[in-house]
């Protein structure tokens, strides 16, 4: 069904593309929100990704790869948005995240607010790795291709992103207070 829609959209059928976009936009918007944490920026990123998808769809060789291709466009669009946003934002000074010892309880903490605070501290590129792997369920090789980075870098970036989140949770647990928001890269 989707393949047929992609084939039609590739040939310029706008109704087919509207159906594809309608089916994907909720998932794309959620992923963009998770990466950017700003609803307007997320909406812009999704719109830009979909417009680019429409424009470049005739060059997609394999219609079966439409979803993966669209994810790639979305992440690139999110990172472009984040870079554009950075020009207008003053990043807060960061505190060190080196935590020498990890208490056993930290890794099992799943408090929603704590997870959110830890997640928000990551920069958009790191959030993108986590969203691709843990939300869109892409395997690491697909994450690497999506981000246009080597697999080793994707692995180390995911490793580092999760480590920073855990360290933030640990710092949060130690101080009993929230963590100042600001990107960590």
């Amino acid at each position: 069904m989707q393949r047929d829609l992609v084939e039609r959209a590739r040939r310029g059928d706008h109704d087919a593309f509207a159906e594809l976009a309608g089916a994907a936009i909720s998932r794309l918007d959620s992923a963009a929100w998770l990466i950017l944490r700003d609803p307007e920026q997320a909406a812009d990123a999704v719109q830009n990704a979909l417009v680019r998808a429409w424009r470049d769809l005739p060059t997609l060789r394999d219609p079966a790869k439409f979803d993966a291709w669209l994810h790639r466009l979305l992440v690139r669009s999110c990172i472009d948005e984040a870079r554009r946003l950075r020009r207008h934002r003053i990043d807060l000074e960061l505190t060190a995240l080196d935590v020498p010892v990890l208490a056993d309880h930290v890794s099992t903490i799943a408090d929603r607010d704590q997870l959110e605070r830890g997640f928000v501290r990551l920069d958009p590129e790191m959030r993108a790795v986590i969203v691709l792997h843990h939300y869109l369920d892409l395997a690491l090789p697909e994450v690497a291709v999506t981000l246009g980075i080597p697999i080793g870098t994707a692995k180390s970036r995911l490793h580092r992103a999760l480590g920073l989140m855990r360290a933030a949770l640990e710092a949060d647990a130690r101080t009993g207070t929230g963590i100042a928001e600001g990107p960590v890269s």
Partner: protein
Amino acid sequence: MTAIHDFERNLGAWLREDSEHRVPDHLEAVLVRTIATRQRPWWSSLRRWLPVDVATPRAPRLSAGAWRAIVAIAVVALLIAALIALAVGSRPKLPAPFGPARNGVLLTSADGDIFRVNPTTGDRTPLIASSLNEFGPTFSRDGTKFLFLQAADPILSSAGLRLVVANADGSDVRAITPGVDGLDWVDWSPDGTRIAFLSRELGRGRINIVNVDGTGLHPLDVGRPVNQLSWLPPDGPEIVFRGEQQIDHDPPVGIFAVRPDGSGLRPISTRQPHDRNDFNDVAVSPDGRLVAYRAAGPDEPFSVHLIDLQTGKDRVLPSAPGSTGEGGPGFSPDGRSIVYLRWFDDASTQLVVAPVDGSNVGIAIGPHGPFGPDGPSINNYIFTPDGTAVLANYDAEKVDRLLPVDGSPGVVVARGQLAFGSFQRLAP
């Protein structure tokens, strides 16, 4: 391990919960924009056209004069070929530990341990196996030692990774650094006495150098974030690196070199960057004369460029029809060929071996690595020390392939949850 799994499971659940309230209301706006946007023609991703004559004209009968001209041209061509052969044969051989050599054993990492792989049978033998996560084995250029990365803490990933060195047979294992935040790029000095590596502070890469005995660890401050470092062959007077632009206040992205003592910082790249993604995938030729990189711009397809370090001339390697981009260059042991990834419209990739002189678009080797939930992806790849093949990791398929550079079918040399492989270089 259970704690880590709990954390990641909870993270996935939270991501879904956190994104559930999203109810996009801008589909109409998207469709209005797409109606006003013209689609690219399907053929527009082809970067060039090669004219192909489908009608072959009948060959005319040649006169005696024409035959004499053909013979004269053939003689001249033979003379030129002989001169080229003489020039190539008299080209100085690269000094050890560079140039073609015999293939030794293959190291790879899987599931947090280091294995020795028999390239012929694919049999794996554990070489380094501990409770810690160990990966990324890389032989020194003389093949007598290897390094690998080891998690400094079994659970806390933010404690960083440390650099560990061992003899080629797995003996004398010793950590030579403490836990380093963001350790992800490592290169042996040509003489095997030092290791340069990348660390990150708040995401900004920094060059570090340490002696293989663990002494002399020191950072190099080049005043900007860096990445993709390599010692400059053949004797390592400088370290070549990619200078990154992560924030607006950083200088523009480019390729640079600096001496190991931090002095003599100089630019290598000779043109202005297209954007912050330009000058990527930096690789240095084994004779130290060329630097290869992937060029990129906002509306430019990826392409492989070469900078001549003596003249500063920057040239692009030719692209093949149907390619949507090329990148990830790596030099052959003799420095005359280059392997890189070629992208296609469907985001699949295929390896290509091409001459560094740019005389042709190269030979495709190995299967495509299509992008997709179940498709393979081609990741790390290196020439074998003898230069006859490329070892490539197809991560989604969980195989390492040995692919002859002449394009003939390759063989799977290892299966399983593999990662980066490193070939031991033995004296020729």
